[in-house]
């Protein structure tokens, strides 16, 4: 069933141009319909009794075929992919270019399919393929505005990302050299062979490669450029969704194949640097979009810090931080899309759009971690984990998180102050409508997270425990020495 999460958006993407020519309404509806269907599939599959389970695609038993591993975490991300894509569905920019709109929607669907694939896939090379699919789709979306700057930024992004992909592929080659398999479960069994420097180097290759999209410091210099030139919806999609799936992949690798302590430290260090660097740069940013872009880098740094923590606690913290950011950042980007422009021009904007102003404050508060908003729980979990771990790097990270929070407060509320200041009314009232409403949905999600916090907490704990259990993964995927090919029915 879960294959639909990948297949349906792909079919919709392939057919979208054709159907659009056939019938306008069909063209409009097919994308969202596919995403809604994916959501339904995810809901249907969410049965704690059967989770986790594995699917051998093509009916070939692991390690020969490609395996989809479906656990609560994967389902969560699948659902999030569908939901976020639905919410950030490309809108008609009003430039009358129907063809471009269809293409943008196609690319968005491809992105969704790739993201779902990344969440589900249990095969290293297959992950690479989906990663590339996401990358290519995002190159296209980066250039969607059709401005010269968008082309240039997309090109620079492409070169950076392609170099990362090359490095990642080299890492995959090294791993295949060492183990002769690509299945994550199989690799997990063979993790002992990857303990040496070669294995470490392979992981670092993958880290740098996939880190590009995960906005890992220091391979994230594309972020401010690209988010500055795309529509805010795309920026929200890239920052909120795609980055998290790249992180998810790295986490799966870390948990299953590379349990080395040193690699966690490396991740922690890079996360801390990203966190501080992003927040500092955001502090200095002069326009809202790039402020959010830098802040996104910082938040992703926090995600890395969280996931670098060992054990279930780290996974739980990471999931909470990641999901929190996934909900917030698109909302903020949507608001930025409503307002746009430099910080100076925003004086009094919230007075003219009170709902948007309130949402901004809500997001900002959650981002800096005002209890009982979910941002606080995220930060609390990360800090508790770090303090429990101790060590020089752990203390550094704790201090970094706290300092970054103060910086965050400083720039976010400097902006909030400007939004609410009694500015001269020269600035035209921003176009209201879709953006704010969608942002309102994200805001509602934040509030809902507060209301349903205890239930969510139980869910997340199970999720983290499940995702952190490498043995469970291997057991679920199955024995790696199948005697007979399954051939027909599984």
């Amino acid at each position, binding site marked *: 069933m879960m294959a639909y999460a990948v297949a349906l958006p792909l079919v919709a993407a392939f057919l979208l141009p054709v159907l659009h020519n056939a019938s306008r309404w069909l063209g409009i509806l097919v994308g969202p319909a596919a995403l809604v269907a994916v959501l339904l599939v995810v809901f249907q599959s969410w049965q704690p009794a059967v989770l986790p389970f594995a699917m051998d695609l093509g009916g070939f038993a692991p390690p020969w075929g490609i395996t989809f591993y479906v656990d609560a975490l994967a389902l969560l991300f699948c659902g999030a992919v569908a939901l976020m894509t639905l919410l950030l569905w490309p809108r008609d920019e009003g430039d009358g270019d129907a063809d471009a709109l269809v293409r943008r929607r196609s690319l968005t669907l491809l992105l969704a399919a790739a993201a779902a694939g990344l969440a589900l896939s249990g095969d290293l090379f297959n992950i690479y393929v989906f990663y590339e699919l996401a990358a290519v789709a995002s190159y296209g979306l980066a250039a969607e505005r059709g401005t010269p700057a968008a082309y240039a930024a997309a090109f620079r992004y492409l070169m950076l990302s392609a170099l990362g992909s090359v490095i990642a592929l080299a890492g995959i080659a090294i791993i295949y050299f060492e183990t002769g398999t690509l299945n994550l479960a199989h690799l997990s069994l063979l993790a002992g062979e990857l303990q040496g420097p070669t294995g470490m*180097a392979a992981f670092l290759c993958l880290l*740098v490669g996939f880190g590009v999209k995960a906005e890992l410091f220091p391979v994230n210099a594309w972020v401010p450029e690209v988010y500055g030139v795309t529509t805010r919806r795309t920026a929200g999609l890239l920052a909120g969704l795609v980055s998290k799936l790249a992180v998810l992949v790295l986490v799966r690798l870390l948990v299953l194949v590379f349990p080395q302590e040193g690699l966690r430290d490396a991740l922690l260090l890079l996360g801390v640097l990203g966190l501080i660097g992003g927040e500092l740069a955001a502090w200095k940013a002069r326009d809202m979009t790039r402020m959010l872009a830098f802040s996104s880098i910082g938040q992703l740094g926090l995600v890395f810090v969280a996931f670098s923590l060992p054990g279930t606690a780290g996974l739980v913290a990471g999931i909470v931080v990641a999901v929190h950011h996934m909900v917030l950042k698109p909302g903020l980007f949507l608001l930025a899309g409503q307002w746009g422009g430099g910080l100076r021009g925003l004086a009094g904007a919230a007075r003219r759009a009170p709902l948007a102003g309130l949402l901004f404050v809500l997001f900002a508060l959650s981002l800096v971690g005002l209890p009982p908003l979910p941002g606080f729980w995220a*930060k609390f979990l990360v800090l508790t984990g770090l303090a429990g771990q101790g060590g020089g790097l752990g203390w550094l990270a704790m201090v970094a998180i*706290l300092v970054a*929070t103060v910086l965050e407060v400083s720039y976010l509320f400097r902006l909030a102050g400007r939004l609410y200041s009694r500015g001269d009314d020269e600035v035209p009232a921003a176009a209201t409508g879709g953006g704010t409403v969608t942002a309102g949905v994200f805001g509602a999600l934040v509030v809902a997270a507060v209301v349903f916090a205890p239930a969510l907490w139980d869910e997340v704990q199970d999720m983290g425990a499940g995702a952190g259990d490498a043995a469970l993964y291997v057991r679920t995927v199955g024995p790696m020495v199948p005697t007979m090919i399954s051939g027909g029915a599984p």
Partner: protein
Amino acid sequence: MTHLDLLLLVALINLPVAWWLAGGATRRRLLALPYGLMLGMLLYMDPGATWDSGLSWVFLGQSLSWRLDGLGWFFALPTIGAALAAAAYSSGEWGEDFAGAGGSMGWLQLALAANVFAMLVLLAAGDLLTLFIGWELVSWAGLPLMVLAGGAAVGAGIRYITYAMGGGMAVLLGVVLVYVWTGSLVPADFMAVLPTLASWQVGLLVALFFGGFGVKMALLPFHLWQAPAYGLSVGPAAAFLGAISSRMGLFAMALVLVKFITLERLVDLTVIPGLLDSRDVLAWVAAFTIILPTYTALKQNDARLLLAWHGIGQGGYMVLGLVMGDAMGSAGGLLHVFNYATNQAVLLLAVFAVMHRTGTADLNRMGGLIVRMPLSFLALLIGIIGLAGLPPMNGFVSKWLVYRSLVLEGEPLLFLAAIIGTLGTILSVYKLIHNIFLGQLRVEHEDIREAPWSMTGPMLVLCAVIVVTGTMPGLVLGVVADAQQAIGLAVPDYHLGGVTSPAGGLDMLWLNGVIMAGFAVGAVLFYGFGGRTKRVHQLDNYAGGHFLTADVRYQYSDNFYPGLMHHIGGWYRGSFQWLEGALISVVDLLATALRGFYHQAQPAAWVLFTITLGFAWAVLP
């Protein structure tokens, strides 16, 4: 539904209610009602008992619980009281004018209600996590109250929240460390483990909590934010903030440092062997917090800022008394919270009443208003006597207890610091009252009227509180005793008029009695004997041999004490401003460097750099 739940619920429901009430001119008159209800509920609850909340749930593996004990009760009293006064003050003409001038009464009242709710949540904290939750809520709730005034206040508010979050983060780290080191955030559990922690651990916790809570208290060196943030706000908000808001820091300090970590442990933590333990450090921070801000206040030319700076200085007395930890000192420190709240509320309300009428708070632009606004003058007079800590007002009692404790504990330099602070306070409050109410009435203020009853009413009620609790401090000392017991401190031997002690006690009933009698004698001597006095025009005076005219600039505030400034003027170096500026510069520099990183010609090079370094790290052992 326990009593505490009910109180919190009323405070919560008050949010929309306050918003709604603020909406209409007639509805506004009822703004104070919810606070009155809350005050009644609070008074109904016995401060000596512990009031549990029915709410408690487990989340993140932590059990959250709320309970109000004597300490919380004691802090809740001035909280609700100050809100009551502020709401009443804004319910009449002030509110109409504020709304008329484009201000949002709804936001003001909503923010006020939110503050009260947040503070009650904090005061009812039953464990460290709820304490932190309440702490953050209080920190953030303060922001809208500060920025309502717009303009410079917004900058001050953002500065505040940056400082406050710095403090909040320190507290968060402290909470996290307690959790990790002791395995629990429930007081009963972690207090059992705390004594087994190493000195450096406890020292770190003390530093984090004291620093974090100290930011809210505006203790040195984190004091720069407070005066503009409180002073530049709108009247009732400023009064509420100034009266109680930053005292939440003291509450948290009392709870965490005194109750959880205990002062004995603080004394055991040696900073400089044989010379300085950590309690001394805290006390000295408090002492410098008394002196420096007080003398900064002396230089202010804006009445609001002058008072706000004093608020910082007075916080020092509270901390100083609290960390002394003996029965009298801690009683004095805690009592000063209540006393100071009444004083500061009266003072700020009076100053804003004047501002409401004259449109200015600049001490260089007022004078002689006593003849136009006598009730405001009376309120301000009582307020400054209380603030300066002179008998017969309540401020004297709490300060006396602190002095007494310092003498008994043998802390001559701290004692001196406390007195120096008091003297500075006297100097600067005289400047305040002189430049507003005494001296010449300015031409443009000729037609000023007294502030309306909706404004003078709350002031006068508070004045009555000041005088009554000054004469009968035992009324409050009883509650203070409950608070002291709640955090495990000794309780002074108190009675209605004050305290008794083998080494010298205080009985305000008698003291105020003789003072009043003395005044009566003075009055009899003055009015009963001699010729009849004759009122003359304000410009009809000797003026050193020539006549004054209305255009001679008389009222001035700059360099009011030239003889003193000759000596201490050079000490105002703005070192802390400089420090803050330097910090910002460093951040700016780093941020610029980081922006450089994100603006490079060939970002892909970093892929290469990273992977090469990674390879090297992986390959090299």
